[in-house]
């Protein structure tokens, strides 16, 4: 297979796909999308990069082992659920929103951070699985 096209394309596709993943993550609160789909798209971006440039380059690009994204995402999701309990004495998972929406990103609140946690867990889990499979081949 001629890898030149794939290599060149993946170099441009990686940032584009990651941007798209973030877009899906942010739009997910009221519209279709969210952390799970966004995380899958981001994972696909890295998998595509690994196909073109080899696993080692992608691992180097990621810097940390993707496995650690799972506890980090879980901790972020739990934290965003516990914040209303600890800060306001409200029930678990109550949404606390910043009063004014920010430009581009939109409303910022604990549900966004919960979704971000899901995003990280999905990237971590799918990359760990895919990297492990392609390593043992």
């Amino acid at each position, binding site marked *: 297979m001629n890898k030149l096209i794939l290599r060149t394309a993946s170099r441009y596709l990686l940032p584009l796909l990651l941007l798209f993943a973030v877009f899906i993550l942010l739009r997910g609160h009221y519209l279709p999308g969210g952390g799970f789909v966004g995380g899958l798209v981001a994972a696909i971006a890295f998998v595509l990069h690994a196909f073109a440039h080899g696993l080692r380059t992608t691992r180097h690009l990621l810097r940390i082992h993707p*496995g*650690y994204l*799972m*506890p*980090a995402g*879980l*901790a972020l999701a*739990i934290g965003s659920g*516990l914040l209303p*309990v600890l800060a306001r*004495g*409200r*029930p*678990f*998972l*109550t*949404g606390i929103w910043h009063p004014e929406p920010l430009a581009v990103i939109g409303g910022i609140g604990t549900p966004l951070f919960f979704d971000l946690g899901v995003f990280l867990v999905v990237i971590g889990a799918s990359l760990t699985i895919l990297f492990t499979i392609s390593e043992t081949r």
Partner: protein
Amino acid sequence: MSGPLILQPVLFHLLLSVLMLFLWRQPRYHRGISAVGSALSTLFALALWYRVEASGWVVLQAGQWPAPFGISLVADSFSATLVVLASVAGLAVSLYAGRAIGMARVRFGFFPVFHFLMMGINGAFLTGDIFNLYVWFEILIISSFVLLTLGGEKRQIQGGVKYFTLNVLASVIFLTAIAVLYGLTGALNMADLALKMDALDNRTLVRISGLVFLTGFGIKAALFPLYFWLPASYHTPPSAVSALFAGLLTKVGVYAIFRIFTLLYPKDFFIDSLLLALSVGSIVVGTLGAWREDDLRRTFSWLIIAHIGFILGALALRDARTLSGGVFYLFHDIIVKTGLFLCAGVILRITGTASIKASGGVMEALPRWSLVLAIPLFALAGIPPLSGFWPKVSLLAGSADQGAWVYAGALLAGSLATLWVTARVWSGVFWKAPPSGMEVKEPLVTAGRDRALLWPVLMLALVSLGMGLFPEPVQSLADRISTGLMDREGYIRAVLPTLSMQ
């Protein structure tokens, strides 16, 4: 601030798992974290139990969404007591696993998955939303499958495939029943469902959905005739894992049957008769299976099936006295079955063989500790001062009052058969001289670090002994729980305070 208290049994285990995932490369810390964490979570569970005993109910509406719309977490005495017992059993398993589980399994995440499983068990006990219950069951299946197959031995995979196939099938059936109910009522909150289902005209469809639930939960609780995955899989993993499964996993299915069939399907002659017949069937096949089995842990696995029949038969009779016997038996069974499989683990280490015929000499190797190991064994048979005796009295007296002679007969025959099986295990494993050629690995257990394996067994034996010697508080708790289960109004009012019953 009742919120955090009901969250702790669920969230605390999740936090422990997250901490251990961060320490993935340092597995030597996992044992300590798990032991300390399990002890703390037992204290939290006790705190929740005291709160529930003081105020009757602890309800949390997650995300501040009011009851029929959001997900409710509900702790009544039944849930709270089961959470306490699960934490005690979990603590014993965690302490035992800290010694017995090899470093290879710890490195592949035994303890994080163990705490995910504990989270799932507590979540299933506490949720008030039927779809959420399904989600907890999924968490249970996935983490238990990992624990069952971790280590990758051939027989583990063989057992795991049967376990996973049947349990996923059960989940699909359970989900189908939820879908039917949602289609009929548009509700998922259990209290809301209970109200809306009463108003339905199409009783046939309601009854069919009940049968679908019974099939799904029946597989999970290893009820006759869909029990065969249990003796095929529970003896394959390390004993710490079997103990957890035997003590808690099938009991989650039993809890779900208790909750759903008291709240959503109160007193339906057809469903109750069917449940009674299936319970009697479970008692019969369970004891017959244990009768002819030679493998130690498989023998105990068959007895699980028989005793599930004891418990569910009590529900089928729909009588407060029998039901309280069933609830008491459930409490006793969680502690004793966990202890029994931990015992089996110790015995396997001493004798080195799973076969009852080929083993022996444990009494000689461990004269004093054998008495401790005997407590779960004889509590199972229901010998009077131990915890199995009292619930059987209530069960027998209650079923005789109801004129349910078949069930009462099965109960008596099942108890006698259990006694016979435990006597066989006692004489075969403890009394009999070890067959020539087998070396009893006595120093392995009595000296050195393996001695610590005996402490969790002692802990569970003491709990069982306490329940047997002081049965009155447990009996009155079981009485209160069974009247609470029979009277749905309290539950519905606690979850939906704005709605009044018509």
